[in-house]
């Protein structure tokens, strides 16, 4: 399979724009382009290097299922989604916030009006592009994604998550209100490709799709995710246009595993940060353009590492965050 080692010259990962400035109909002070690379991660220079990866900090609107380690670290912020989002950008140094509507995971959820309010609150509190995660229950998907999409209209958020058996509501909202979509499949390159084709049939343009090949947690199947990301990047650079999309990676179960949950309270933060870091850093090396973590301390560690990987390959401003339009 040595042919995979050398990308076909000219093949590139598609560029996806996130966020919209005032001039573009939004309110973001920064916007990002992700993707664009023509080489394996951090090996290219100039245009072939593509755009620098981004670090997202995940927050939620209902903290009942959130890691107690993170809740302890962020304190009162957890009670105020807008303030939490603002702190993610200013205090914790994330490139973007990923807001997860965990409230919709409760059985019998019907407080749809709260979704729009929270989205507006977070938009008002932040200046960078956003990722917003809706429900996981097909019965309420349509209403949830409509409310979220509508409240964020014009901001070009990254809306999650489309899956093979429930992608229509997400795609419809993205189309109606001008957002991009996270397309998640369970660690399988063919399923990833199929979902992209399905989304294509909804008329969602390919430059508004980010692939999520699903990231298992360090020590719990992470190797499958690492390799599927390497494979996706590899075949994309060989010319498979359906897979030539930026990837997003979030090892969402990192803070639920035994090693982290049962850590001594005194070292729990250290363990949580390392468990997230090793998976997120490896995802960057495998080709993820957006990595998501939940512990604020992981962001700083990733930022330093990213600087060292990008050294000299991008103009300073862009590499370190700002890409104002």
């Amino acid at each position, binding site marked *: 399979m040595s042919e995979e080692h050398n990308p076909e010259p000219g093949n590139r990962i598609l560029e996806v724009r996130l966020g919209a400035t005032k001039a573009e109909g939004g309110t973001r002070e920064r916007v990002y382009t992700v993707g664009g690379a023509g080489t394996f991660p951090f090996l290219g220079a100039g245009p072939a290097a593509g755009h620098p990866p981004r670090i997202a900090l995940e927050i939620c609107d209902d903290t009942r299922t959130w890691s107690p380690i993170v809740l302890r670290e962020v304190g009162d912020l957890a009670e105020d989604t807008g303030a939490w989002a603002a702190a993610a950008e200013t205090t914790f140094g994330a490139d973007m916030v990923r807001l997860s509507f965990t409230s919709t*995971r409760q059985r019998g959820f019907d407080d749809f009006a709260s979704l729009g309010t929270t989205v507006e609150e977070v938009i008002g509190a932040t200046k960078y592009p956003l990722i917003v995660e809706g429900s996981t229950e097909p019965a309420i998907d349509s209403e949830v994604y409509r409310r979220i999409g509508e409240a964020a209209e014009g901001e070009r958020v990254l809306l999650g998550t489309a899956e093979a058996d429930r992608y229509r509501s997400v795609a419809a909202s993205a189309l109606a209100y001008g957002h991009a979509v996270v397309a998640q499949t369970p660690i399988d390159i063919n399923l990833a490709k199929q979902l992209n084709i399905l989304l294509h049939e909804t008329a969602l343009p390919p430059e508004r799709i980010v692939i999520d090949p699903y990231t298992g947690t360090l020590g719990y199947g992470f190797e499958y995710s690492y390799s599927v990301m*390497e494979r996706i990047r590899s075949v994309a650079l060989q010319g498979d246009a359906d897979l030539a999309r930026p990837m997003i990676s979030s090892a969402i179960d990192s803070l639920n595993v035994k090693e982290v949950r049962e850590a001594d309270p005194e070292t729990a933060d250290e363990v949580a940060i390392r468990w997230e870091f090793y998976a997120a850093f490896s995802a960057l090396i495998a080709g993820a353009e957006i990595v998501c973590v939940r512990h604020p301390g992981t962001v700083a*560690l990733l930022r330093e590492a990213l600087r060292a990987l990008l050294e000299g390959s991008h103009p300073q401003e862009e590499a370190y965050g700002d890409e104002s339009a």
Partner: protein
Amino acid sequence: MAMKALDIYKLLPKTNCKKCGFPTCLAFAMKLASGKVDVDLCPDLDEQTRELLGGATRPPIRLVAIGAGERSFTVGEEFVLYRHERTFYHQPGLMMQVADTWPEERIEGVVARVRDETFHRVGEDLSVDGIAFRWESGDADRFGGVVGTVEACASVPEVIIADDPEAQAAALAHCGNFQPLIHAACADTAEAMCDLARKYGCALAVRAGDLEELKRLVGLCRDRGVENLMLDPAPATLRDFLARSVEIRRRAVERTDPDLGYPVVFDTVPLGLPDAATALGILKYAGVIIIDELGPASTMAALTLRQNIYTDPQKPIQVTPGLYPVNAPTGSAPVLMTVNFSLTYFTLLGYLEAAGIPCYLFIVDTEGMSVLTAVAGGKLTETLVADAIKTTELENRVDHRVLIIPGYAAPLSGKIEEETGWEVRVGPGDAAEIGEYLETGWEA
């Protein structure tokens, strides 16, 4: 360049004499092509063919042993750039550094950790592999003294980091017989370092930031009779290491540059960023990684990453089928059926433990396939479930007859009910929802 099985076959005698131990020449050719056997097993090749096939089929990266005794390890003999192409074979040795300028207690602390600290994960004991001595004092005798003191209390593999042959000689006088890695020779010192490597039979690292210079050093050392070499690409940044290590591995496995066919050593300490550098070394082809005093959290994460990356992707990882009690269940506890794909098992187990609900995890044998694949591929069937109920004596373990099956196995619910006589409930498709499902939706 690597050769395909058919091209190799054309050069073999085609007599099917079986002297190589394989039934046919073609079978032997296929083994050769995958790098799994040595061409010397065929006694009927002329010298020229033997050399040609050997160059094209022997492992493109030399196997190098570090250390002596129980904890010694080997690195190299890798064949691919990406683990999905086949697998990675020899995981890198993590060598924790001590400097000869450190106070005695600090050195002792690191040595004790390397000697004694292990983490147990999924049936394996994980630990840091050895100690790297760094010469910082400028005093060869002092360096030798430190190595000697440690040598007396720990028998673990070692790296001797000193660019001065005299300091090396002082250290090797204490530990040379235990095959430490000598790190590192450059153009000026290659001759003296080679003499030491030969004297003690140790592996020798050569160090240069430029690949052409590395190749020149390799040639120099080989001319002086040292074959067990490692390459230190002298990175100043993470980005340097990635670029150089990938290029070395690429040229080696594509067999375009046999002089680069040696395992890489990565000294992460001068770069700072200990977590990122250690992870990068594990992911991108280092054979020996010299690390700083990583804390226990970092060490555990790094060793877990190494375990993941060096897992053979060709074998689905499986857990043993059977009945697993979770959170001390009693006879009235729910029974959750799922497959023996380890990722499924561990994910589900994590959520169940987090939810704290007593239950039985009932694992059936789908040969390591996930629920979706097993249902689609006909591996998960009602008879399989019925047989598993019998072999686990499930009926004696619980006092109800309700079986919760994975959401993705819903199409089988009717058939399983008929075949087993148990009442089947369809659980959630996503393990993350199992806690809530059990809290609200389940009663036997």
